[in-house]
């Protein structure tokens, strides 16, 4: 009987989304709004993705401010709530703050899981759970009448689709190979904190997951050592999301104040089991210091996760980097046309990364906007459903830009990646071409246009940048930063007017 109530039986669908974390839920919601029929398949038994299990110490890095200076019902509230998914219906909007107990502005893991489950329920996102994707092939045109390009094998049977949206997270634990690495256990296998009481723990990796573990083990381990070949970066130094977040910096302070935590720049040479059962780690310093031998009780690999792309690389999906992220166009399309990505995998589309500042695509507060833009691009390019391009009267162009700069959550969270594009209409006046990846807006050519972004340069400032694309050549115009992010001031208006005037 249960089988009769499960949605999306094997068959042919225009679009298939794989996953049930925030990226998949937001992509499904956004496609449905545009009338694009699709199926959602997930190996998990319930919504939430990685938040069903992690972070290990059960509290997020991304905040939601229950009490913000703007009403929760406004779009601008999204600037203060990094964790709720996006919906047009009030009953599915800004769900996270009501699910928090007030002890922290970082939701606990269960609170985040409840937020995502609540969204799936209130927005009526249907998912075929317990359906595991096992293989992929390109579809022979002769087999299909609906333009399908891909065949998916799953634990429930065979599916076909024209567009495949992969939203399975960067979720497969990865431990680099090496002599003795079998003696390590991964972040994903970390035991309850109290089982490390009085033990000497070596953590491989100095990014957030390594520092999260060190922070959680501070009251338990008798010695903590963190190591990786390069310096630890702290987000408060980089003034971006690059580096260890402030919540996990305590082990760093312990280290620099002589509390006993050691933080080393070193590469692992090998690990051996000594006769007494302890582990002997041989390290090669990368900072010019001498080699080190360390006796420890546990070695934990906080060496990250990779994308569980199953057999997509065999189809031609190119990957890169330590997380084996797929190579993507600015519209999150892989090197195989028709295979797209939503959720945290979208961080593989790098955008301009001006001044070394990455997008927030790897986090919910960035990926949720990507999903909406992705859905619009799928609708337009694959199904010919093109969004309205509302006319903007010439005397409203500056108002529209100023309103975006001072209130838009899209531009605010996807700084330097997403842009509002306002183009000259050959028939006269201007049209709003909506939110687009900035790289596309700069390079696509077309009518003269202005692309509007908010950006950061690692100095701590967040400021507007206007790009004027005239006869295919883009020039950038950086406006002065304001410490309170007030970009509806007379000074901002004057600066915007001068750039808009370049379009004639």
């Amino acid at each position, binding site marked *: 009987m249960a089988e009769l109530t499960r949605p999306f039986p094997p068959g042919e669908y225009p679009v298939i989304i794989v996953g049930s974390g925030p990226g998949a839920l937001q992509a499904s919601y956004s496609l449905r709004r545009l009338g694009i029929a699709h199926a959602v398949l997930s190996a998990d038994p319930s919504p939430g993705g990685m938040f069903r299990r992690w972070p290990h110490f059960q509290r997020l890095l991304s905040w939601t401010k229950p009490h913000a200076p703007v009403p929760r019902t406004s779009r601008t509230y999204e600037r203060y709530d990094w964790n709720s998914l996006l919906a047009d219906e009030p009953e599915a909007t800004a769900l996270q703050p009501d699910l928090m107990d007030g002890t922290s502005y970082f939701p606990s893991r269960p609170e985040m899981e409840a937020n995502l489950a609540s969204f799936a329920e209130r927005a009526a996102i249907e998912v075929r759970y317990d359906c595991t994707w096992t293989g992929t092939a390109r579809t022979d045109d002769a087999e299909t009448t609906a333009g399908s390009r891909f065949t998916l094998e799953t634990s429930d049977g065979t599916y076909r689709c024209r567009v495949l949206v992969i939203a399975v997270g960067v979720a497969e634990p990865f431990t680099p*190979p090496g002599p003795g690495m079998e003696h390590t256990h991964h972040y994903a296998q970390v035991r309850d904190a109290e089982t490390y009481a009085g033990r000497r723990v070596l953590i491989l990796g100095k990014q957030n997951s390594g520092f999260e573990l060190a922070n959680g083990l501070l009251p338990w381990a008798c010695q903590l050592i963190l190591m990786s070949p390069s310096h630890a970066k702290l987000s408060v130094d980089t003034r971006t999301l690059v580096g260890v977040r402030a919540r996990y910096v305590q082990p760093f302070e312990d280290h620099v104040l002589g509390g006993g935590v050691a933080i080393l720049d070193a590469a692992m040479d090998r690990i051996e089991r000594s006769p007494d059962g302890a582990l002997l780690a041989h390290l090669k310093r990368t900072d010019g210091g001498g080699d080190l031998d360390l006796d420890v009780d546990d070695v934990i690999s906080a060496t990250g996760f990779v994308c569980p792309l199953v057999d997509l690389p065999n189809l031609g999906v190119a990957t890169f980097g330590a997380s084996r992220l797929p190579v*993507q166009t600015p519209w999150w399309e892989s*090197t195989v046309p028709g295979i797209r990505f939503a959720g945290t995998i979208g961080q593989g589309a790098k955008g*301009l990364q001006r001044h070394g500042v990455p997008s927030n695509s790897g986090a919910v507060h960035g990926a949720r906007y990507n999903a909406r833009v992705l859905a619009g691009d799928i609708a337009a390019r694959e199904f010919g459903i093109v969004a309205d391009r509302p006319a903007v009267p010439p005397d409203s162009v500056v108002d529209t830009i100023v309103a975006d700069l001072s209130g838009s959550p899209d531009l605010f969270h996807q700084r330097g990646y997403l842009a509002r594009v306002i183009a000259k209409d050959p028939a006269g006046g201007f049209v709003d071409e909506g939110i687009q990846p900035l790289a596309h807006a700069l390079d696509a050519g077309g009518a003269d246009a202005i692309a509007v972004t908010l950006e950061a340069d690692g100095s701590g400032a967040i400021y507007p940048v206007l790009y004027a694309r005239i006869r295919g050549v883009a020039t950038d115009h950086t406006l002065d930063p304001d410490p309170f992010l007030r970009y509806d001031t007379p000074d901002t208006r004057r600066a915007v007017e001068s750039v808009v005037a370049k379009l004639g």
Partner: protein
Amino acid sequence: MSDRDALVDAIAGFSLFADLTDPQLERVAHTFEELVYPAGERVLRQGMAGSGFHVILEGTAAVVVDGTERARLARGDFFGEVSILLGESPIADIVAVETLRCLVLSGPAVEGFLTDHPRIMYRMLQVQARRLRAANRWRS
């Protein structure tokens, strides 16, 4: 062999990193970010500041000035350093001719990296000196 080991082996053969020990190469591989640009994508934009220092691992890039291709860059070549060193905008577009795999260091990180690695700075100076010599020959 891990992806990281393969990366270390690859850059060990580049003249820029020729003087580094294995642990130092591993540190470099960790410090730079590996990025891949699909064919046709613009990597650096003429006139637009804020780009990074790139070392090509795989693929070919075109140097395009005012819409005209002036040169091609390939494995082991690097670009982006001039605008970072001078604090000015790039004077050319760099466009991926085919899938382009690079190691990238953000502009603000370059000065600290070079002063931490004087041998890399020296190798970079040698390349710049050759480029200058070639340019002078071309003019004379």
